[in-house]
């Protein structure tokens, strides 16, 4: 019998039931498929609240669900158990996913209303949501890997949801394959850990207790492999490139993926594995360096982009970089805090972008196509502004507190990290204000669409507003009440220090805010004061356009690798296998036939030849007999 709080089981059972019910509904009433999903979201949200309360009052718990796989042999047994892990980390993630995810579900009801595949969308979408829930409550690495892959699979289905679009198909495949590359690292790490444990898998609690007793080389390998896995899921260099393309899916998918379900998984993995990672010499520094590199690089690219969703996508990459940097700097709490605030403001931004695209009757919109939407879409404008300010890190918006925690740590570390932190603050302000100005103030360029842009309906506007409220408030709530740190400390296996989230501090406030003002000023200069300078400057330097287009030539490198793999497969599958390996097989036939023709020609039909051979045969045998004379 399973001893677990019912709400914990509900987190997994409700979505499963919803998907099964939806599957049945899908066959005869596809337009009603969203109801079970919405119900499930509500249930999960309530369960998450209850679980957060449970954790903060009673502490963490491990629940054994069932023995997934096992083998026995006289010397040893090998087993993998499935269970549920409830601690501060998973409770926080559950809250984030259920809140943001639930609201995006609601939003999708409006957004996808006119889509012919409405029912299918909700089935996939809820599956995505379910997979992420499963991931955060996983009790061991095998189980986590299981849901980790399911998240990837669901993202594949959703990015490729509009499969009639060539770009969507490609993006889906790219996302899945890139993630698979990262998954291999995860899988390898799991195998190494299992080999270390020796009897199959072990839950996190037991594993982390082993911690320091593990051979440092093995541990380092595990740590780096897990980080490798995280770079794919959380879109860090060198495996980040799938994420900007992944916005080919419907906008709610992008919102969910960027805010709550997919890319957060990598950061979650790093946080979950922090007790191991922190033991590896040099690995945190690596994580920080990669995070900083990713954050800066993608922020620069974000400045150059014009597609709304693409800017936001690069922005996500950048912010994930910030989070990785935070983890690398030992501020796991800060990184998770940023994950939380980022979930709110990025979801808001994406949904606003969706509203705009929806209003313009396009799947996605370009900044040059928008402009001056301030008056026509007031709710969207308001929400977008709040979220943008939060993203930029304006006091007292949520983003300020979380970013401040990381920038503060970077400044504390000093050196390159401090420079990187300031640069990131500057760049994020630059691209988000540029976007804000262009979309809502810039010159109108949408006269041509058949009808005027209009505000989204209530079912879409309400979730956006709620999310925007979160993007404003969640920071203050979490920091000044120290509630987040307290929650996260439940069941935390690392040092308590790594979870501490600093409150308001003047030095980092000044540094961050001044960078922010520089960025905002630069954005104003680029978009409003001298709107023609940037396009002209870039147009006169085509190499620069190319540089940004290819993410500093990194994309060209990746496609080169892909081409090489494809060429190798052709060389093996078409040429080597059929000509060499099979050629040797198929060649024997003609060879033996040729020999047959040779032998056949010897049988000339002439009686004298026959007798000659007869005599020769006898002579040969005689020779053999007499040789032994």
């Amino acid at each position: 019998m399973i001893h677990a709080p019912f709400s914990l089981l509900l987190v997994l059972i409700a979505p499963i039931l919803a998907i099964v019910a939806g599957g049945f509904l899908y066959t005869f009433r596809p337009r009603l498929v969203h109801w079970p999903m919405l119900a499930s979201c509500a249930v999960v949200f309530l369960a998450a609240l209850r679980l957060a309360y449970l954790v903060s009052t009673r502490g963490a718990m491990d629940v054994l669900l069932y023995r997934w796989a096992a083998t026995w042999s006289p010397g040893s047994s090998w087993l993998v158990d499935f269970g549920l892990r409830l601690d501060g980390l998973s409770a926080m993630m559950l809250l984030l996913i259920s809140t943001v995810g639930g609201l995006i579900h609601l939003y999708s009801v409006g957004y996808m209303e006119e889509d012919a595949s409405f029912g299918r969308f909700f089935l996939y979408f809820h599956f995505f949501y379910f997979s992420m829930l499963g991931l955060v409550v996983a009790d061991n690495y095998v189980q986590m890997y299981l849901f980790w892959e399911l998240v990837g699979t669901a993202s594949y289905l959703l990015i490729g949801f509009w499969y009639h679009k060539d770009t969507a198909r490609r993006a889906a495949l790219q996302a899945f394959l890139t993630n698979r590359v990262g998954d291999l690292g995860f899988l390898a790490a799991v195998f190494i850990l299992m080999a270390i444990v020796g009897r199959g898998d072990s839950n996190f609690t037991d594993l982390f207790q082993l911690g320091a007793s593990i051979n440092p080389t093995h541990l380092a390998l595990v740590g780096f492999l897990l980080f490798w896995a995280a770079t794919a899921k959380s879109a860090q260099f060198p495996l980040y490139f799938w994420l900007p393309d992944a916005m080919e899916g419907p906008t709610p998918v992008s919102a969910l993926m960027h805010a709550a379900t997919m890319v957060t998984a990598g950061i979650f993995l790093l946080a979950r594995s922090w007790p191991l990672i922190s033991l590896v010499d040099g690995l945190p520094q690596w994580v920080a360096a990669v995070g900083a590199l990713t954050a800066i690089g993608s922020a620069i690219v974000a400045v150059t982009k014009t597609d709304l969703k693409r800017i936001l996508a690069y922005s996500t990459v950048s912010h994930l970089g910030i989070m990785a940097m935070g983890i690398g700097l030992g501020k796991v709490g800060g990184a998770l805090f940023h994950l939380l605030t980022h979930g709110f403001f990025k979801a808001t931004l994406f949904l606003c972008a969706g509203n705009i695209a929806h209003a313009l009757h396009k799947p996605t919109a370009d900044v040059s196509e928008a402009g001056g939407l301030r008056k026509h879409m007031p709710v969207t404008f308001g929400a977008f502004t709040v979220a943008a300010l939060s993203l930029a890190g304006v006091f007292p918006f949520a983003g300020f507190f979380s970013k401040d925690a990381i920038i503060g740590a970077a400044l504390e570390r000093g050196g390159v990290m401090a420079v990187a932190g300031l640069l990131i603050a500057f760049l994020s302000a630059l691209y988000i204000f540029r976007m804000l100005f262009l979309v809502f103030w810039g010159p109108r360029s949408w006269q041509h669409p058949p009808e005027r842009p209009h505000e989204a309906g209530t079912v879409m506007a309400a979730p956006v507003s709620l999310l925007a409220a979160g993007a404003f408030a969640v920071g203050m709530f979490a920091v000044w009440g120290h509630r987040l740190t307290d929650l996260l400390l439940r069941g935390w296996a690392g040092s308590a220090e790594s979870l501490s989230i600093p409150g308001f501090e003047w030095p980092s406030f000044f540094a961050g805010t001044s960078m922010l003002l520089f960025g905002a000023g630069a954005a104003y200069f680029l978009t409003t004061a001298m709107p023609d300078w940037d396009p002209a400057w870039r147009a006169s330097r085509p190499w620069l356009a190319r540089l940004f287009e290819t993410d500093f030539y990194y994309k060209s490198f990746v496609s080169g690798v892909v081409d090489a793999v494809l060429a190798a497969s052709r060389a093996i599958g078409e040429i080597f296998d059929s000509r060499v390996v099979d050629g040797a097989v198929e060649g024997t036939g003609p060879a033996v036939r040729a020999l047959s023709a040779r032998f056949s020609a010897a049988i000339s039909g002439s009686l004298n030849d026959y007798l000659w051979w007869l005599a020769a045969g006898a002579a040969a045998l005689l020779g053999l007999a007499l040789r032994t004379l």
Partner: protein
Amino acid sequence: MTLWVWGVSLFLFFVGLAIVVLRRQLLLMLLGLELMIAGTNIVLVFYGGLRADADILGAALLILAVAAGEAVVGLALILRAYNLGLEPDAPALRELRG
């Protein structure tokens, strides 16, 4: 003495063999066959006398009879071939081959 007899016998045998292998006329080849058998028979008759073995002399006689029977069959076959319009010549018999 034994060597001499063996010499003559083997000589006849191999001449017969040479005829069979090298000559092309079927009748001559038949002759060659008979020569091989007869050559061998010489040894048997010689030993029969030498060892006063009546059995072997009887055997030689039997072999002669068999050889004669074989010759008759051979002649009959050649004749039949001739009647069917085949040349009694080895190189002409090359319909079957390969």
